[in-house]
């Protein structure tokens, strides 16, 4: 169990800067999800931690052990870093049996033979793969290979376990199961897990803490999942985690209004700088409610039942927005029919400068 500290990491592929002065402190004994869109530098960060690439600047420490420091010219070799990794493509060695795969890290650590066997079987037990110990990887399904990779990562007592999109290739049900499994494993081992994903849904399910990375490789927020959903630090976090509607705001003669092709008066509070032009109001679909008395009128374009909620597409002026109605609200307020006119109210709104080139709902 140890914390992981990235400090001032800069990495370039040729002239292409992937990470610039990136810092992140991953707390000990927690599952931390590193979330960001494809190509934002998540994998690069992981490879730097593993010692597979060498950053230009900065330092990486695990617990009180310095793995890399550009200034002090410290660069611990990949094989001596003691970090468990589950690669995105499993990287299970196809010429070794499941058991041989799991034994390999122990062999390299010169663990006594009889102990190797015991520990490997225990690791396989934890991922429910004992009966496949003698199988070759090509006889296993993707999910099973994934578990072998996890067993191989947890078989040595690593300070840190890194999982790089470990479940993206699994089907929905297995994905759910594996997330629970990872949770259980973490409880048992008490290890620090750095979990990399571009899928916010699994991140929300799994993590204790979330780190949101932006396209340009900078960290835009680090906090608990609640904090990130309820108090997004900027427009990117707001937009990236969850679904969102954006509508341009303008200052009309009659006060604040929403620009939906036609001007729709907005009665809520609008900060002064948002009225200067070029700002948008952001609202999540589940923060929109029906309110028969509201002056804001919209028409229902379509309604889809999603099992635990209703999903509506509404026309507000000429702009289409998305709204979600929980089952509780549907019970108490009733559902709106397609084509009908409804009054709506925004519960929780945020204001952000508009993106260049405009934004859709």
């Amino acid at each position, binding site marked *: 169990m140890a914390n992981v500290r990235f400090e001032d990491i800069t990495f370039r*592929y040729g002239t292409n800067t992937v990470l610039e002065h990136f810092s992140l402190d991953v707390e000990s004994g927690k599952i931390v999800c590193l979330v960001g869109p*494809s*190509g934002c530098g*998540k*994998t*690069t960060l992981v*490879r730097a931690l*593993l*010692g*597979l*690439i*060498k950053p230009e600047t900065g330092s990486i420490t695990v617990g009180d052990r310095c793995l890399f420091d550009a200034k002090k*010219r410290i*660069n611990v*070799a*990949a*094989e*001596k*870093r*003691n*970090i*468990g*990794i589950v*690669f*995105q*493509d499993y*990287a299970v*060695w*196809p*010429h070794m049996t499941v058991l041989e795969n799991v034994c*390999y*890290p122990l062999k*390299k*650590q010169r663990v006594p033979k009889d102990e190797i066997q015991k520990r490997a079987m225990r690791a396989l037990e934890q991922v429910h793969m004992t009966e496949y110990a003698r199988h070759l990887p090509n006889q296993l399904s993707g999910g099973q290979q994934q578990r072998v990779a996890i067993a*191989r990562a947890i078989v*040595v007592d690593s300070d840190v376990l890194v999982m790089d*999109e470990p479940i993206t290739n699994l089907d929905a049900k297995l994905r759910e199961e594996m997330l629970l499994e990872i949770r259980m494993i973490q409880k048992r081992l008490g290890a620090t897990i750095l979990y990399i994903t*571009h899928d916010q849904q699994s991140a929300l399910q799994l993590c204790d803490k979330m780190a949101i990375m932006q396209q340009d490789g900078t960290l835009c927020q680090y906090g608990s999942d609640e904090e990130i959903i309820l108090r997004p630090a900027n427009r990117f976090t707001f937009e990236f985690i969850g679904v969102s509607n954006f509508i341009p705001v303008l200052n009309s003669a009659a006060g604040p209004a929403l620009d939906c092709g036609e001007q729709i008066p907005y009665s809520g509070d609008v900060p002064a700088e948002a009225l200067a032009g070029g700002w948008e109001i952001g609202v999540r679909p589940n923060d929109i409610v029906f309110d028969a008395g509201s002056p804001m009128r919209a028409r229902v374009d379509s309604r889809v039942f999603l099992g635990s909620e209703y999903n509506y597409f509404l026309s507000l002026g000429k702009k289409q927005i998305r709204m979600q109605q929980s089952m509780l609200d549907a019970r108490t307020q009733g559902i709106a029919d397609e084509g009908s006119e409804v009054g709506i109210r925004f519960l929780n709104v945020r204001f952000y400068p508009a993106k260049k080139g405009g934004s859709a709902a």
Partner: protein
Amino acid sequence: MKRMDGVSPDLAAVDGRRRFNMDKMMTAVCFILLLIIVVIPIVMIVYNAFFYEGKFEISLFVEQLTEPNNLGAMWNTLKIAVFTTILGTVMGVFYAWLLGRSDIPAKGLMRALFNIPYMFPPFLGAMAWDMMFNGRSGYINKWLRDLLGLSVMPININSVWGIVFVEVSYYFPFVFMQVVSALERMDPTLEESARIAGAKQRQVIWKITLPLVKPAISAGALLILTTSLAHFGVPAILGYAKRIYTLPTRIYEVIYNSGGSFDGIRQGAAISVMLVVVVAAALILQNRILSAGSYDIIKGKSMRPTLIKLRGAKIPLFILAIFTLIMIVIVPLVMIVLISFLKAYGLPLEFKNFTFAQYEKVFSANGTIASIRNSLFVSITAGIICMFLGTLVAYVVQKIRPKGKGALEVISMLPYAIPGTVLSIGVILAWSGRILGINLYNTIWIILVAYLARYLSFSMKTSSAALLQVHSSLEEAARVCGASHTESLADVTLPLIRPAMVSGFFLIFLPAMREVTTSILLYGPYTRTLGVQIYSLRDAGMIPQAAALATVAIGIIIILNTIVTKLTKDRKGV
């Protein structure tokens, strides 16, 4: 998300802090070995063609370039190569289509038979055809002349057209094999949609099928072209009698006539430059045509194509295919075996003239036994060394990707485009005492060095393809699990590419066993190879004995091929 395939050099960068590291060492070893094996011989050719005693000297080259014999040889080389390529391609595509796409009977057997000419040494085929249709003494020629009551021989194989005919019959499998496999891997819905869209069968073949397999056709045709341009055996056996020369035989002639003197070798080097220019021009031309199309439509997995019904043409086409097979596979083979039993060449092929004496001579003569031993030794040694060296180069190019990896790749592939005869001259110039006093001339080692240069690209290609399949994360996972760089190579990468390395070995060993083009210029009194020994026996007029040794050689090749097929089949199962 992408797993950053292009970034494995980082591993090297990470280790870069240490003064000594394996990646750098492997890269250096690659460059040094390729320098010795490939670059020095090639540089020596160019140097000796244009420089004399350290001074630039163009007169030798000009003299050779304007020599009528050489110009004639050049013209013949081009004529033979072009016609062989055209006819071989047409024949290859036609039979590929017939066996791949029509409902002709006995396909499996015929496919196996159509591959035979590929492993049959062409110069042995030329020997057989010469026995049958030699313009003065061919057996079938004599028989036909008597039968038809002619005063001259009806067919003369000792002509440019005879050479073209024999080369076509042994080189068309290059195109045949490429196109058959492309046809089999082609998505049949592509043709079916054309039919549904209203195209007639004939239109589908011309407008859909053939354009889609065009890359395969071009690749095969290129192979025919370069092989024919560089080929020594067939024109040597069929052309010498009538003084028909090609550039490779002309090089041999010049050196042979000079008794292996330095002047002769220098002249050979100058002619070599001409040959290299011709080959290079052919490659560039082909590259232009080839780059016009690369399609992803041909899938890796096998699909069942729709077969076209031949209806009335079925039986005649079947007979044609069988006839072709008999003509190019069975007749020459039977001829060689028959002649090998003759007491003396020229005697009628009657039972009373048959004897085992030739085989007794073959197996009792020290020279022939030694030649088999020599061939086995150089082929196996070259196969093993190339297997490791080719894998090393492939690893450096694919995984380490140092600066100058492009150069490394080009250098290792260069001998592929350089005719064997030319390579031999380079090797003679380099390793007969002129550099560091190393003199390998007249020893078996000079043949080995030449084979290394000639066949390195074979094993490099197969290892390269295998390494591409080994994702870098497999090696990285081993590193993270606590394996050093060396250990990750030994535990993960090498075991994964071992099957490819083994097949790379056989890809070198088999052609090296029957090779004559390279070793004909390099052999010494005690270092004849199997091919050279057959060639010299025949040259000395001991044709039945040459035929007997040829029969033995063919036997060895067939046995080895069977073993290889068995071995490689087992490997696929694992």
